[in-house]
């Protein structure tokens, strides 16, 4: 309900009832004293009239006496002029003067009449008000031109000063300013809310305090002025005080709909008019000129000036009501709707406007047109909020008592509350799920206690955590059979290694471009960007080198991963950095690869430099990381105009070197390519100078390479190469499944932290999947684990067969440099840990593996030895894993854990 409607529905009867006493005093019952005076006066008048007394009735005499305040002479004069010798037209000046005088008197007393129920004699008040009522009729017919003329004569100096003589010009005298009645509703708060006292905002409180202060100040200054204010003002203030009292007596929730009612002046005038109509009701046939009492009774003492003489204003306001109100036109009738349709439109009703107010309502109107049927009167008290009803139970003769709550409401409203509320449903469901989750945690925590303890021994018994989310559901698939059934493309990953600036990234960028993995537009954009910093030849490399630092420096820093697919295989490209400073990153890449592409710069001098540098180191590293298949891409042959001699020379040298690094000859292939132009990468070279090469292209070589056998049945091992945050899970781990298999819902153990996690969902080879097997690159969304427990290089494993954590291990190492008991860095994939060579128990034979020499002091490059490495912190390592030992930025050894 709108506020408007609410205010409209307020009950004003209470408010108006308080003034009933006033309206009662308006009754024209004469008091005994008046009656006495009246009889005496009547007798005197009749005596004065003598024989003419028969021409006037007693009522007329009384009327005249009443008006002239028992002045016998005046009454006689009036009666003679009016009834005995009615003049054709009464003299104009006489009544004017008379009414003027009377009106002045009336106005001097009218303020007393205001004192609703104060100590003045009520009869006097009644009299005076009646006097003012009766005054006007004689002057009604005054023409305005005459009026203005007579004003002119009555006025002394018609000038501007006179015109504005009572204009306060801002200094409104105290008696003219109204007394503001405080608003009836407690305002000052925010709108809306419950029935409690509204809270004041700070700003409002400040404003209120300021206002109060200002009022106090003004009150102090006004005190002097108020002391000299006359009786009239006092009486006005009394009236105002009465009003204020009345307003305060109202219940604060009630509020006048009309704002005029809240102001000082109009309230009594409203009431007065109401009481007039009330007075009119019992005797509608009474003389009409008495009833619509003309001036608003609260009018302050008028000052002659703008408004003219008091008589004039009195005359102005004495215009009868029926002259100003009318029935609406048919349009207005329709517009104003129900109310006017109930109004009689007879001429009689129009001529007596107070009849219109008399129309009684039979009660509120219902329906749009007001003709609707009222709902049956409900005599239930508000206490009847329940009802006992007797209902027959089923088919038996038994009756049962049913308590119906709020029987006064319609059934639909009751039905709405019969069921639990939506809130209750939700709360109940939440409570239920919490108890369920609580039951679940118990077995889960039990499993935690048993499982990790089996392998590591130091996996601490975990506190049962409050599990806030349900565990991911496992479908319990047989992953291996699923994998066999799965007829997808096989996946393989390869790492691109080579000396720095051999063109690895550019070649891979060209490969991806030719395979439409990246579109031409992207490359054009990169080319433009590269041109702006003067490195236009790096545009293709930037497809993979996406970091700002890599682009400005023009070298690959970290491995970049990309994916492309051919007809048969999905390949994961690992573009490794060639720079010797970033060998650890290269190791991380190589550890995820099935085979390798070794890129060699065919430029004069460049190949030779590489052979001494990272071409050699990378070859040794990838071999010791377990990569056996290698494709040698002899790059930049366009720089040497596709010279076959150069290619053959490089091929011979590299074949010798690679076989020395224990690559088998069948696993080595050579492809002459141009990475910048894409010759022999995806398509054969169209250059006639390169026509001598008829072998397979690089992609064909890749496709023909069988990835190494997957360790599908081994326990699960995943090396986390990236840990980050996604929408799916705060702990998202990317890595390669080194061994084993997993599926959604599996419990996993993160080593070395020993924390347990669950697979919420996973992506295998960038596609959402239910399961993943060894060899695939996966992205795991883990749950039930804190992100601080998972770091890059961690091993994620099967909790049933966890990887051991150890700070000491023995390994069979191939030395690339002299090995003595010294500080080394142990690299395994992304994992690297600081340690030292603790002992060299034996020197081994390179071919047979037999112990050649016990406890050597030093291990020479190219020899194989068994060494013991002590680490500073335990790391997850197990037998069969390949690690690289580096020292001082050089790879010193690589080998197999025992």
């Amino acid at each position, binding site marked *: 309900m709108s506020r408007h409607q609410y205010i409209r529905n*307020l009950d*004003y009867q209470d408010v108006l009832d308080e003034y009933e006493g006033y309206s009662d005093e308006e009754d024209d019952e004469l008091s005994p004293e008046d009656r006495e005076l009246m009889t005496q006066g009547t007798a005197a008048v009749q005596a004065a009239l003598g024989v003419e007394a028969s021409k006037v009735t007693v009522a007329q005499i009384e009327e005249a006496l009443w008006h002239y305040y028992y002045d016998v002479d005046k009454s006689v004069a009036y009666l003679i002029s009016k009834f005995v010798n009615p003049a054709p037209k009464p003299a104009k000046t006489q009544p004017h003067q008379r009414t003027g005088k009377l009106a002045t008197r009336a106005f001097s007393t009218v303020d007393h009449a205001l004192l609703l129920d104060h100590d003045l004699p009520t009869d006097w008040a009644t009299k005076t008000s009646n006097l003012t009522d009766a005054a006007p009729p004689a002057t009604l017919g005054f023409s305005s031109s005459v009026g203005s003329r007579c*004003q002119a004569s009555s006025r002394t100096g018609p000038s501007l000063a006179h015109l504005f003589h009572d204009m306060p010009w801002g200094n409104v005298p105290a008696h003219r300013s109204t007394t503001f009645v405080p608003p009836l509703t407690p*305002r000052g708060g925010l709108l809306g809310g419950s029935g409690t006292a509204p809270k004041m905002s700070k700003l409002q409180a400040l404003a209120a305090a300021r206002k109060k202060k200002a009022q106090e100040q003004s009150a102090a200054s006004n005190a002097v002025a108020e002391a000299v204010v006359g009786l009239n003002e006092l009486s006005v203030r009394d009236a105002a005080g009465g009003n204020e009292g009345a307003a305060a007596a109202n219940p604060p929730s009630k509020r006048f709909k009309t704002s005029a009612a809240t102001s000082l002046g109009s309230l009594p005038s409203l009431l007065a008019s109401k009481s007039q109509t009330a007075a009119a009701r019992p005797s509608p046939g009474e003389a009409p000129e008495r009833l619509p009492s003309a001036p608003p009774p609260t009018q302050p003492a008028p000052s002659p000036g703008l408004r003219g003489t008091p008589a004039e204003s009195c005359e102005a306001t004495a*215009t009868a009501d029926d002259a100003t109100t009318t029935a609406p036109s048919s349009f207005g009738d329709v517009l104003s709707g129900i109310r006017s349709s109930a109004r009689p439109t007879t001429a009689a009703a129009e001529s007596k406007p107070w009849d219109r107010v008399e129309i009684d309502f039979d009660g509120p109107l219902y329906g749009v047109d007001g003709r609707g049927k009222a709902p049956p009167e409900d005599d239930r008290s508000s206490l009847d909020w329940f009802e006992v009803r007797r209902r027959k139970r089923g088919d038996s003769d038994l009756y049962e008592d049913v308590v119906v709550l709020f029987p006064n409401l319609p059934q639909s409203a009751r039905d709405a509350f019969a069921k639990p509320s939506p809130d209750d449903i939700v709360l109940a469901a939440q409570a239920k799920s919490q108890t369920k989750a609580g039951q679940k945690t118990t077995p889960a925590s039990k499993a935690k206690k048993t499982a990790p303890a089996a392998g590591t021994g130091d996996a601490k018994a975990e506190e049962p955590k409050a599990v806030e989310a349900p565990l991911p559901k496992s479908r319990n698939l047989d992953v291996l059979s699923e994998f066999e059934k799965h007829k997808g493309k096989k996946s393989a990953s390869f790492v691109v290694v080579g000396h720095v600036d051999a063109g690895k990234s550019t070649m891979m960028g060209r490969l991806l471009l030719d395979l439409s993995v990246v579109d031409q537009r992207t490359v054009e954009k990169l080319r433009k960007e590269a041109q702006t910093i003067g490195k236009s030849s790096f545009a293709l490399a930037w497809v993979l080198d996406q970091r700002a630092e890599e682009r400005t420096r023009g070298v690959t820093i970290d491995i970049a991963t990309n994916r492309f697919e051919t007809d048969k295989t999905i390949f994961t490209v690992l573009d490794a950095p060639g720079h010797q400073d970033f060998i650890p990153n290269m190791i991380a890449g190589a550890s995820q690869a099935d085979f390798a592409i070794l890129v060699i710069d065919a430029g004069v001098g460049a190949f030779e430099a590489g052979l001494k540098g990272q071409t050699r180191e990378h070859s040794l590293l990838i071999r010791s990381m377990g990569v056996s298949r290698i494709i040698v891409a002899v790059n930049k042959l366009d720089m040497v105009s596709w010279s076959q001699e150069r290619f053959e020379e490089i091929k011979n040298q590299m074949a010798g070197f690679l076989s020395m690094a224990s690559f088998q000859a069948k696993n080595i292939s050579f492809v002459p390519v141009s990475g910048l132009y894409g010759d022999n990468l995806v398509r054969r070279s169209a250059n006639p100078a390169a026509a001598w090469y008829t072998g397979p292209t690089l992609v064909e070589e890749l496709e023909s390479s069988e990835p190494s056998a997957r360790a599908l049945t081994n326990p699960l091992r995943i090396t986390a190469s990236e840990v980050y945050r996604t929408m799916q899970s705060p702990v998202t781990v990317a890595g390669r499944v080194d061994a084993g298999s997993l599926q959604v819902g599996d419990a996993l153990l993160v080593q070395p932290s020993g924390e347990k996690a669950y697979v919420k969902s996973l992506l295998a080879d960038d596609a959402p999947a239910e399961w993943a097997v060894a060899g695939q690159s996966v992205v795991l969304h883990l749950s039930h684990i804190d992100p601080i427990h998972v770091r890059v290089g961690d091993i994620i494993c099967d909790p049933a067969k966890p990887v051991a954590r150890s700070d000491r291990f023995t390994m069979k190492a191939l030395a690339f440099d002299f090995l003595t008991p010294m500080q080394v860095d142990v690299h395994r994939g992304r994992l690297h840990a600081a340690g030292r060579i603790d002992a060299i128990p034996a020197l081994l034979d390179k071919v047979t593996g037999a112990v050649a020499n016990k406890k050597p002091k030093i291990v020479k490059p190219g020899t194989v030895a068994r060494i013991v490495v002590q680490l500073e912190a335990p790391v997850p390592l197990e037998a069969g894993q390949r690690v690289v030992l580096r020292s001082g930025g050089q790879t010193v050894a690589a080998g197999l854990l025992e």
Partner: protein
Amino acid sequence: MTDRRRINGPPGETIPPFFDDADRAPETAKGRFRPSNAIRKMFLKTGVTPSASGSAYLEISTSAKPGASGLKLSCSVHGPRSLPRSAPFSPHLVLTTHVKYAPFATRQRRGYLRDSSERDLSVHLETALRGAIIADRWPKSGVDIIVSILEGDQERETSRSQGDEVWEMMNALSGCITVAAAALADAGIDCVDTVAGGVAALVQDTDGDESQPSIVLDPVPSEHAKILAACCVAYLPTRDEVTNLWFRGDVPASDMELYNSLVEKGIQASRNANRVLVGCLTESVGEGDTS
């Protein structure tokens, strides 16, 4: 500003012409049927627009026969409502008045956008109401007062004499003031008093200079041969204050008395209108009692 949103008719269109019929006696100037100090009968009703906070409808009929043209005003008051965020802080109630003639309200068809005369009326109305509203009771609030003039008090028959429309505008303004005061009261916005408008005019009933001009209340241009001057007054009866005064006409500057009497008569007209207003509000309070 041109109106680009609606399809407007050609400019300057009028209602169909009213031809003098030979058979019918031409309706000459009808003259004034009511006393010179009486205003026309009016009908005032509050609460006609349910969706507005307060509303009122005022109707003044010129002639005795119902349905004849007169003044029909509808006023709706929206608010007090909080000012938009973009508006600067105001410690008082921000009063916004819109007076709009309906396109069909006058002989000369009006556009859909407010023209200058309508804006002028709005300013007058705002001045008149500002004196009555106790604005500091509603800080940070705004009130929109929208008066639609549905019928602009222009006689169809007098279409041949396209007189000065200012006189009709004065009548419209006095009606606007009265109806807006009623709507304000209906909305429950605090006022010091009910303000009502009244018009008095110095008219000449017969053509020619020899006749004596007289002052009439609530002049209807078609009833008089000539209107020499007119004055529209917005008056607070209880406080004896004039909140707005609009005087127009050719009156010799020396005749100060004439100015005085015109304003007085205007106040008298305003008092008469105020009685209707108070009666209407009393009635609506009474309705509130019964329903």
